[in-house]
């Protein structure tokens, strides 16, 4: 019993920072509809700024003052981010802003490194709170007790603000229809900035408050992201009580998990998330997302047409040129091009889902990495020849996608996206922790192609054939009845269902098909590198694809491929420089702001404006 209570208290104390960060994210999402990936970065900044302040402000007053000031400082940084980066892109298509926030992550990462250096910083102790209280004989650190007492008060204050004050009413109204709130005389720009500042300040506060329990390091931003998203989704996007309850559930469960299932630490919260969303598709306290209710639908997509003959000629010429690469290019040029081609196929497979299907998968790496792992497992454990692995791995990835899609397609919008992310994370944790089979993070090595392919040139042609082939198949399917049905299900599920189209089946099949193509890309990848590691299944890999698809242009057929080629190329150049993340982040933000329709979309728009391209169709 004593032990039980002690664990409960530890869990409640741990929930503190998680709750602060999560409710900040939830508030921001609720009002601005922005899934702020940079929220983890704000948390990290809170920790660093708090640390520096504590070094300079002595005593208990200095300590608590530093935490408060860190929150305020991060709030101000949030204002800068909102005004400089997000305000210009509020009118961009849905979810495009999240790409901008990804740019912010990169910029903050490098700036933090420049300012505070690479060393991990150990957080200072809270003055007067070193040591433990004995509760039922169990030692509980004093600071834990302080945290678990403070947090409900902060939660209550926020709850009061949101439910009982006019500001809160305005925030909730803006959550639903911000344009209307503006038309009723409320300055929504100020409201947005205010909410963003408040959300950021909470993240900063969370970062500073956890200092005595940890410290500040450069990996904090990504590490907090997954649990925070899980908490927000379980609680229900935009719900404060939900965020608190979910933070407590996750933290307490985690503490018990540590004791009774010590190996479960990575998987547990994602399992909880999947279970909660299966039972309550909009989280514990969330409300149903109604598509388009926020006046954010964006311009309708243009009709598609198969490529004209002249475009086909240009593509053929380009391909011929690529095919000649071994003649005039170096061995490295082939390796680089192989990498880019594989990534293009990966991006194109996501684009098929995202663009044509309107199905925003945040976890597409599951199929890419999944394909790679199936191939590697076949080679490692079944000694299967490359050819067989090549056949089975994409199929396996496709099947996995069907299974995951079957579950996820019960949800829509952000919840759908988050559930796909949860599944990808589940798969990742499985691969990461099931070391005896998957090699854990030491991965699977010596996965090389058969002898006939085992030269840079031969494999280059092989990758060229399959990636370009895959992309062309994806494109063709877009023009087939199935591709049309997929768009129909996206444009108007109502109409499609009432004209006999089984939209669920169409979308599920599309999910499986995209998974198959992603798996093909992964299989090509594993044999080109000879090894595979869990990072091919990570969130970051999913985001890579997501970002290039958005930056290339979701609403254009060529967007995925063009974005992938452009950014993979730029990345190869940029990573040669020290602060390349800063440059890459700024580049991403720049593209988001000047080309809100993506690169291809904006080029097309410019071409239409200049009358180079006839309006009304896309190829």
């Amino acid at each position, binding site marked *: 019993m004593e032990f039980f209570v002690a664990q409960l208290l530890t869990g409640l104390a741990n929930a503190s920072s998680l709750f602060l960060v999560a409710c900040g994210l939830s508030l921001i999402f609720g009002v601005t509809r922005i899934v702020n990936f940079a929220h983890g970065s704000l948390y990290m900044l809170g920790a660093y700024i708090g640390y520096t302040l504590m070094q300079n402000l002595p005593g208990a007053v200095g300590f608590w003052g530093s935490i408060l000031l860190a929150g305020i400082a991060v709030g101000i940084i949030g204002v800068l981010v909102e005004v400089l980066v997000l305000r210009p892109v509020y009118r961009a298509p849905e979810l495009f802003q999240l790409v901008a926030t990804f740019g912010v992550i990169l910029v903050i990462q490098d700036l933090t490194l420049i300012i505070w250096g690479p060393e991990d910083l150990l957080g200072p102790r809270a003055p007067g709170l070193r040591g433990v209280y004995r509760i039922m004989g169990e030692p509980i650190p004093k600071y834990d007790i302080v945290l678990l007492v403070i947090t409900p008060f902060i939660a209550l204050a926020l709850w009061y603000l949101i439910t009982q004050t006019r500001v809160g009413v305005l925030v909730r109204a803006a959550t639903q229809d911000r344009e209307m709130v503006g038309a009723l005389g409320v300055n929504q720009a100020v409201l947005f900035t205010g909410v963003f500042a408040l959300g950021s300040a909470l993240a900063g506060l969370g970062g500073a408050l956890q200092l005595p329990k940890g*410290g500040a390091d450069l990996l904090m931003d990504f590490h907090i992201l997954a649990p925070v998203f899980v908490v927000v989704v379980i609680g229900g996007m935009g719900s404060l009580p939900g965020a608190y309850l979910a933070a407590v559930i996750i933290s307490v469960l*985690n503490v018990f998990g540590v004791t009774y299932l010590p190996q479960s630490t990575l998987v547990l919260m994602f399992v909880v998330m999947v279970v909660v969303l299966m039972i309550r598709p909009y989280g514990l306290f969330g409300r149903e997302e109604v598509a388009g209710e926020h006046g954010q639908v964006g311009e309708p997509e243009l009709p598609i047409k198969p490529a004209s003959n002249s475009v086909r000629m240009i593509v053929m010429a380009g391909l011929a040129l690529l095919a000649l690469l071994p003649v005039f290019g170096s061995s490295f040029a082939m390796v680089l091009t192989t990498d880019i081609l594989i990534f293009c196929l990966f991006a194109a497979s996501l684009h098929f889902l995202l663009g044509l299907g309107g199905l925003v998968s945040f976890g597409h790496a599951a199929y890419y990495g999944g394909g790679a792992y199936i191939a590697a497992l076949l080679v490692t454990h079944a000694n299967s020849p490359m050819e067989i692995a090549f056949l089975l791995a994409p199929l396996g990835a496709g099947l996995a996608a069907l299974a995951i899609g079957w579950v996820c397609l019960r949800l829509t919008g952000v919840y759908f996206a988050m559930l796909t992310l949860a599944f990808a994370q589940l798969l990742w944790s499985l691969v990461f922790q099931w070391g005896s089979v998957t090699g854990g*993070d030491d991965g699977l090595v010596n996965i090389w192609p058969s002898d006939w392919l085992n030269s840079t040139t031969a494999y280059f042609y092989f990758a060229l054939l399959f990636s370009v082939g895959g992309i062309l198949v994806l494109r063709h399917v877009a023009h087939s009845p199935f591709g049309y049905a997929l768009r129909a299900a996206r444009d108007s599920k109502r109409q499609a269902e009432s004209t006999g189209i089984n939209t669920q089946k169409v979308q599920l099949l599309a999910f499986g098909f995209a998974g198959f193509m992603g798996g093909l890309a992964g299989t090509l990848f594993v044999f080109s590198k000879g090894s595979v*590691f869990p990072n091919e299944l990570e969130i970051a890999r999913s985001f890579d694809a997501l970002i290039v698809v958005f930056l290339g242009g979701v609403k254009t057929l060529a967007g995925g491929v063009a974005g992938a080629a452009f950014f993979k190329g730029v990345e190869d150049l940029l990573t040669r420089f020290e602060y390349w993340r800063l440059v890459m982040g700024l580049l991403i933000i720049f593209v988001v702001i000047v080309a809100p329709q993506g690169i291809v979309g904006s080029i097309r728009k410019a071409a239409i404006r200049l009358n180079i391209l006839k309006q009304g169709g896309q190829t």
Partner: protein
Amino acid sequence: MQRKTFLRAMIASAALAAMPLATWAQDTIKIGEINHYKRLAAFAGPYKQGIELALEETNAAGGVLGKPLEFIFRDDQGEPGEAVKIAEELMTRDGAVMLTGTILSNVGLAISSFAGEKGYVYLASEPLADSLVWGAGNKYTFRLRSSTFMQAAMLAEAAAKTDAKRFATIAPNYAYGKDAVAAFKENLLKLKPDAEFVAEQWPALFKIDAGAEVQALERAKPDAIYNVTFGPDLAKFVRDGTDRGLFEGRDVYGLLSGEPEYLDPLGDEAPEGWTVTGFPWYDLSDGPAGEFVAAYQARYDDYPRLGSIVGYMTVQSIVAALEKAGSTETEAIREAFEGLQVASAMGGIEFRAIDNQSTMGAYVGTTALQDGKGVMINWEYKDGANYLPTDEEVLKLRPAE
């Protein structure tokens, strides 16, 4: 960065990417160094400084084979796939004669597999994974640093000398952590067959829930604790464990916990009385190690970390191999590495022909607080050669060639 330089560099590298096999004038011997300079800057920084110090000394003394030695440093962002791409670029375009580098085991394994397949020599400087030279070993991959197994064996030896029976372990839940626990168990049970493992905790790497872990360990009432956590996890574990009295009256063994990289950030909260492997640079004044520490401090106005000496010894090993090979041909270098004797900063080491592992050792000692900082006292340098499996066992572990 200046915009113009940046643009020029972009154009230049774009042009380079399309260029046929680079045919640079071979006036230097180039070594391709791949590492996670950004992702693990705190470790890669001192490591790189160690390399640069050794390079300066080597080139001041006339270089190798009559040519200056040059390292091309490339950052892989901690991504194995990226590292493999860079490896190819270094070898085929930049004219590197061999590869070295990496701290993360998975990246090291990726390069190793690639090197084995393509026939490039790769000296894995820092990655600790045992499989690098055993289960996944190949004849082109050599490793400098004493592996997880070796260091765990040193701690197990120390643990076997006490009365402790009930052991608890805590290790990050990934390959290194698992290897480290397995190796400790194996070696301890060999020396003390009645030892019992009463709890195993596996926090996720860098996501430790220290309070819960400490409670769970305390609940098992062990006599001794074997710790593999490091970095921010270690700091949280030490803090919560000290507060809750977990370490009182218990022996604690900490793998790598004595390295300045991990001990220094703890400041005055560094644990006392733990038995650890580490790098007591402050006590090194004699012999090659002392010379290295002095030279390093003179050069950088900073003290060396463990990474610094590994970087330094990497260059020493490569120089020795090149001189022995008398050529920059891959096969010659590979053959030179087999059984190579190096007079290194840690004394004489050998790259064993049987598994390509060097016999670099480690310092084992007890932690203490001095002037508000954690240090190692009563330390001893343990030669790695004594902590490696027998040849027979190695042959069983390594894939047939």
